[in-house]
């Protein structure tokens, strides 16, 4: 047990990330259910107005920083070294450090409940609501310090993964041979490294304002409140790509496997991911159309925002083309991946709607935006993460999840999610504002809010089903055969699938590195360092010139590097 606390093995750190993120995810989910209960009927008194403010703030902050980001980190940690043939990450101890800083940051943020002053200013913490004058308690202090701590964790791990991916690829693993998931991981790490400094500086300004009487967000002293909004959203918009791109990577692995076809236009999928990351830095002010920046800035950011839909649409069409004409196996992972393609498209389309300033001025701060962001974050990120969970579960645990229960879970989650959030488009369109703790009975919001609350409990049921499935699998699930490469079992066109981990030994018995796991007695296998790639294509041709992507497979090399 204590070896889990001192572990520096990337697989174990990955599992720790996943389990911890799931705990925080349940916490954030409970907060969401309380929010929905309060809004289920007009004039309800489930929670007070103050508690409601704290709930939506903590729900947002928890889901972004303590659930989805660390879920992604779990897959980065577990899968990336395996997928590129590295023995571990570049800095194993630093990796453990970033996990533990994340844990402390998460506990610190939630300790605000114990202190009786949970943050209640929204996850974006707009100035000057966060000033000492308007938030005299420690609520904002908890929020800003824990965000600073979590930022350190993300930064350390991002640097670690950039070095790992660029510098620890096995011989033969050229950049364009890397699986799309690894590519998306790389893009995300660059986004973290470049997007976190502005929020760090913004939080430092806020800290100086609150503790030392500086004037950064003090209008009376000549300060400009837009400064916070700019600093926050320069971080905040790349942040949404930090949340979604790993899911895009997972889907790009899952769909080809179960369509038994190579990923259509794989290099284009990679380029479009890089382009999304690049454009992601040029669109932040579309969160601020209502702030009054003037026609030139509005037009520029509106055009940039519409442009970013192009690489995103490219991905959607590539996924559809991958499925087209494939020999599809309708596994649970495929259900979730296809679910992402459909639901993210809905969320993406409503996103293009608010890219237009005149439309946005009608929709901003309404439930329409709430519907949009949940379609991209649940329908996008969470569905992608579930696809990854079902896809890689056998690799990680050596056991299978129940496929029938998995499909039930998918349909419960899918139905619950759409019931909860589709009506919110309508609620927003008829004028229901965000962040209100209740509404009048004659406002016409009551019926669809009730529907939405019922849907939220459907989502909760879907999550419970997953927990039940995971529990059953760990207790008595069917073990995987051999390498744990459950999904490569296609009899035909074996090499054309994309599960590049399939020829690596399954993990539970054979750690890929790290002292703690080797010490458990099983003889360590030849390290992946000794694996090279063999390509069925002539060595001169780029691996994607043919029809197969990726066209390499792992092979044991008789030679060992260094």
């Amino acid at each position: 047990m204590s070896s889990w606390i001192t572990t520096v093995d990337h697989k174990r750190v990955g599992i720790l990330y996943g389990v911890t993120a799931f705990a925080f995810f349940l916490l954030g989910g409970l907060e969401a259910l309380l929010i929905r209960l309060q809004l289920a009927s007009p004039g309800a008194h489930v929670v007070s107005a103050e508690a409601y403010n704290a709930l939506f703030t903590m729900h947002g902050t928890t889901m972004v920083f303590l659930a989805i980001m660390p879920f992604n980190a779990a897959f980065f940690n577990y899968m990336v070294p395996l997928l590129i043939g590295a023995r571990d990450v570049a800095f194993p101890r630093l990796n453990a450090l970033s996990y533990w800083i994340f844990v402390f940051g998460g506990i610190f943020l939630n300790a605000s409940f114990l202190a009786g002053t949970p943050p209640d200013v929204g996850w974006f913490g707009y100035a000057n609501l966060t000033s000492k004058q308007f938030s005299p308690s420690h609520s904002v202090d908890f929020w800003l310090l824990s965000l600073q701590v979590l930022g350190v964790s993300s930064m350390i791990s991002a640097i670690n993964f950039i070095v790992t991916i660029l510098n620890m690829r096995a011989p033969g693993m050229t950049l364009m041979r890397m699986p799309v998931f690894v590519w998306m991981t790389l893009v995300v790490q660059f986004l973290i490294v470049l997007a976190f400094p502005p929020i760090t500086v913004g939080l430092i300004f806020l800290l100086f304002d609150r503790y030392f009487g500086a004037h950064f967000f003090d209008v009376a002293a000549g300060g400009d409140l837009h400064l916070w909004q700019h600093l926050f959203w320069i971080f905040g918009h790349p942040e949404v790509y930090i949340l979604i791109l790993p899911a895009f990577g997972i889907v790009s692995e899952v769909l080809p496997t179960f369509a038994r076809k190579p990923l259509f236009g794989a290099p284009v999928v990679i380029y479009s991911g890089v382009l999304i990351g690049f454009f992601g830095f040029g669109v932040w002010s579309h969160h601020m159309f209502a702030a009054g920046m003037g026609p030139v800035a509005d037009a520029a950011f509106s055009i940039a925002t519409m442009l970013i839909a192009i690489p995103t649409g490219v991905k959607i069409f590539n996924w559809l083309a991958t499925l087209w004409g494939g020999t599809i196996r309708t596994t649970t992972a495929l259900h979730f991946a296809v679910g992402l393609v459909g639901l993210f498209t809905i969320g993406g389309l409503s996103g293009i709607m608010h890219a237009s300033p005149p439309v946005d001025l009608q929709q901003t701060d309404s439930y329409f935006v709430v519907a949009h962001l949940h379609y991209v974050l649940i329908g996008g990120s969470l569905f992608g993460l579930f696809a990854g969970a079902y896809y890689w579960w056998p690799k990680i645990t050596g056991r299978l999840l129940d496929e029938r229960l998995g499909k039930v879970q998918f349909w419960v989650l899918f139905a619950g999610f759409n019931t909860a959030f589709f009506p919110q488009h309508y609620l927003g369109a008829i004028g229901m504002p965000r962040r209100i703790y209740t509404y009048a009975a004659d406002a016409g919001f009551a019926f669809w809010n009730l529907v939405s609350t019922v849907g939220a409990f459907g989502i909760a049921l879907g999550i419970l089903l997953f927990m039940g499935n995971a529990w059953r699998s760990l207790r008595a699930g069917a073990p995987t055969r051999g390498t744990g490469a459950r999904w490569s079992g296609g009899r035909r066109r074996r090499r054309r699938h994309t599960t590049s981990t399939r020829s690596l030994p399954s993990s539970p018995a054979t750690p890929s590195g790290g002292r703690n796991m080797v010490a458990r007695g099983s003889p360590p296998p030849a390290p992946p360092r000794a694996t090279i790639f063999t390509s069925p294509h002539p060595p001169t041709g780029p691996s994607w010139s043919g029809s197969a992507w990726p066209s390499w497979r792992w092979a044991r090399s008789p030679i060992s590097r260094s």
Partner: protein
Amino acid sequence: MAVGALTHLAIVIAGTLVTVVGAFRLALEHHRTPAHEHQVGSLDLDHRKVAIWVFLGSECFFFGTLIATYLAYKGKSVVGPEPHQILDIPLTTISTFDLLMSSLLMVLALAAVQRDDRRQARLWLFGTAFFGLIFLGFQAYEFTHFVREGLTLQRNLFGSTFFVLTGLHGAHVTIGVVWLLCLWLLDLRGNLRVTDAIKVEVAGLYWHFVDIVWIAIFTLVYLIP
């Protein structure tokens, strides 16, 4: 309230401890874990060198944001003193020259370590740190002087932006000085040989970066009227 304060304090202390211990264990990782010894990867670069370059990329955005804020708030203060009334360009030119020269010493230090010249390595490493300390001395004098003249963090927007920007730069110099003194101690104990030149190189990259940032700050804050 008391519980909240205690939780607050305990977590801050625990977090600090974890960070310090983690940082030290990272520093020792290379020595203790033979499996981690091979740090040169597929780019033919040392992991630590790639890591510091990525970190410096991030630092560009960090200082870029600070400088952008200073420029955006320039001339927006509702009360004095104004920058041109208080900034002492000749004095800061001397400290800027001192910091620039420290980069030269840094290069000499790296060259000395690379050819295993222990005596010179020791001299130049300490010299670089010493020049950094001189710069910090100038900054301490400047800050004290400004506060006596009435320019504080709380005085006006210029005070807020100026002290946070140059103060965070000073913090970076301080970290660099501590880093260099650590290397100097390693050298005194005979633990800085040719094979460890990468450690000096990484510290040097950081030091040169901090130096370059100061050139930007000196130009944009002091020289531009």
